[in-house]
């Protein structure tokens, strides 16, 4: 008799799992094997790693291929392509032949995707922008997960008043409209001229930490809710009782009995969370309350490109394609991880 009926969602179980009785394997090893067999999820993982690697190689690209500093305006510069020398900002490129239009995509190593309206290399900027976007996306997701995990473990484990207070606090953050909370925090923090000083911590107004922390705070309840529920039910399990009977301390119970059992939920949530935080970061940066100049992120480049949309569309299109690819890869990876670690779970994060 099969104890465990797999969903017919393309998950094939090993002989060991169906009770063929060969070797005992840890749940992690089994999950790893299931993930390795999911080709689409693996392709998504490869794509994501590739995007991260390419983005972090941005300085190499800028220095050795594009030979440019993408943070310095190059208004009067020239570039030589196929033996012809052209202005980076060409005169009268628009419909009416007025004003200056940056050079379009050259499909050569110099100005591969053209220049923006300050004559900066768009391709190099997109790579640098990826660094900020990925750093903030991954950083804020990690921060949200870390904070949520601590609160969920404490609330779920101790229950009672502790749980009631923490859960109501989380409900409050949850009830506050996400973009509005981020907008309020960002306007106040970014408009203060000397940055923010809390005690001995000093944060410059253009620091990447500001969007990172704002987005991190906003998403804490999204991770807190599913994990707290799980901790609450784990607390009543026999193996926890057994550990209590053996005289284990609260800390020991939390770290060796409860934590390992919620780890898979956190891992399943992570890619979906990073996908969400990257989208949020790009939206905030597009509204000019995320990453601040001179730093760039995919969102700020899309905003730069908006003025040039009808003349030089690649400035806005290229970073958007990067966002779509990254987020899509993370969403597919998240689905694959969920199937591998927890085939019957209903945990889903909203995109």
């Amino acid at each position: 008799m099969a104890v465990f009926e797999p969903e017919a969602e393309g998950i094939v179980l090993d002989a060991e799992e169906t009770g063929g009785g060969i070797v005992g394997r840890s749940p992690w090893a089994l999950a790893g094997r299931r993930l390795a067999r999911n080709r689409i999820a693996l392709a998504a993982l490869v794509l994501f790693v590739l995007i991260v690697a390419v983005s972090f190689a941005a300085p190499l690209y800028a220095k050795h291929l594009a030979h440019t500093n993408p943070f310095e305006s190059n208004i009067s510069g020239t570039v030589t392509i196929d033996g012809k020398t052209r202005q980076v900002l060409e005169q009268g490129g628009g419909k009416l032949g007025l004003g200056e239009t940056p050079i379009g995509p050259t499909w050569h190593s110099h100005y591969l995707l053209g220049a923006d309206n300050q004559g900066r290399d768009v391709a190099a900027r997109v790579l640098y922008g990826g660094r900020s976007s990925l750093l903030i996306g991954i950083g804020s997701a990690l921060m949200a997960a870390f904070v949520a995990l601590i609160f969920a473990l404490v609330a779920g484990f101790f229950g009672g008043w502790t749980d009631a207070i923490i859960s109501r606090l989380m409900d409050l953050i949850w009830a506050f409209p996400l973009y509005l909370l981020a907008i309020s925090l960002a306007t106040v923090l970014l408009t203060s001229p000397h940055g923010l000083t809390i005690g001995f911590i000093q944060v410059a107004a253009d620091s990447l930490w500001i969007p990172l922390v704002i987005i991190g705070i906003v998403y804490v309840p999204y991770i807190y809710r599913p994990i707290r529920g799980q901790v609450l039910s784990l607390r009543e399990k026999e193996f926890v009782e057994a550990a209590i009977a053996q005289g284990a301390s609260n800390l020991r119970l939390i770290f060796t009995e409860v934590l390992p059992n919620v780890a898979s939920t956190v891992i399943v949530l992570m890619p979906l969370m990073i996908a969400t935080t990257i989208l949020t970061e790009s939206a905030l940066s597009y509204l000019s309350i995320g990453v601040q100049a001179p730093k760039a992120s995919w969102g700020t480049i899309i905003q730069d490109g908006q003025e040039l949309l009808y003349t030089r569309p690649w400035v806005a299109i290229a970073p958007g394609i990067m966002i779509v690819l990254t987020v899509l890869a993370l969403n597919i990876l998240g689905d694959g991880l969920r199937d591998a670690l927890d085939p019957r779970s209903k945990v889903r994060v909203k995109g």
Partner: protein
Amino acid sequence: MAAFIIRRLLWMLVVLFAITVLVFLIFFATPGVDPARQMAGRNPSAATIRSIKHEFGLDRSLPVRYGLMMKHMFISRDLISYGSHTRVIPEVVSATPVTLSLVFGAAVIWIVFSILTGVAAAVLRGTIFDPFLMILALIGISVPVFWLGEVVNLVTQSRLHDSFLFSWVPPLGYTPLTQDPFMWFKQLFFPWLTLSVLYIGFYARVLRANLIETDSEDYIRTARAKGLSERRVLFRHTLRTSMITFVSLFGLDFAVLVGGGALLTEVVFGLPGVGLLTYNSLTSLDLPVIMTTVVYAAFFITLASALVDLVYAWLDPRVRLA
């Protein structure tokens, strides 16, 4: 049910209070930030700063300041934008129909198409169409809405505007429904589509998962055993149960969009709704406007989510006891 209603409404009041306190703390009590200077906008005169200091009681204790802020916002409703020197609240009220038009239209589109996609994927499970539709849905939830809007503008306003396909597309902007219904429709058509893409993808995925889950329930087997046609099982039994989640999700998303979530779409398409008003105040650092839209939108969302919970409890008695 009565106890549930009372509990839910009390919680709503707590949330409303907490939101105003939070907004107050963010705007008036962030350490190291001078609220008077911030409220006054760019390059304020010394007199403006002094009058703001007086009006909001910035030299007095925190509870008094909170009371003054609430008075200006809800009782005397005389907050003044320091950018445009107009009253904030009438401005917000006059921008609301634009946001409502945008969100209503998008909601109709996303309900119809997500049900079609979700049901089609669940029914066609096992064929190539199911994964194909689900990948499309996944792409839909991975595209940033403001970028999609730019691409749509690029195609319909510039690159293919002179072709027969898009020559009917009017310039970006908004015409009130009462003034010219046809123009209203034409200008909102692409914003509606753009805004609904994310929700079509998300709802189709949720609906498909729900349909498949419900399909293994005993009462569905009973329905089949009674000899009901597949169509009847799907529409009268499976789909009906699956719609409960769908409806509660819809209520919340709709509220969030009206309360500022449609901001990005409004900015890209130049629709002068509440979102664009907030955005314009952002670029000119007009804090009274931002403060007001944030509080009013948060109130709207809180009220709507209380309403959704009550409807949900009415539909599903189990929720009342939770």
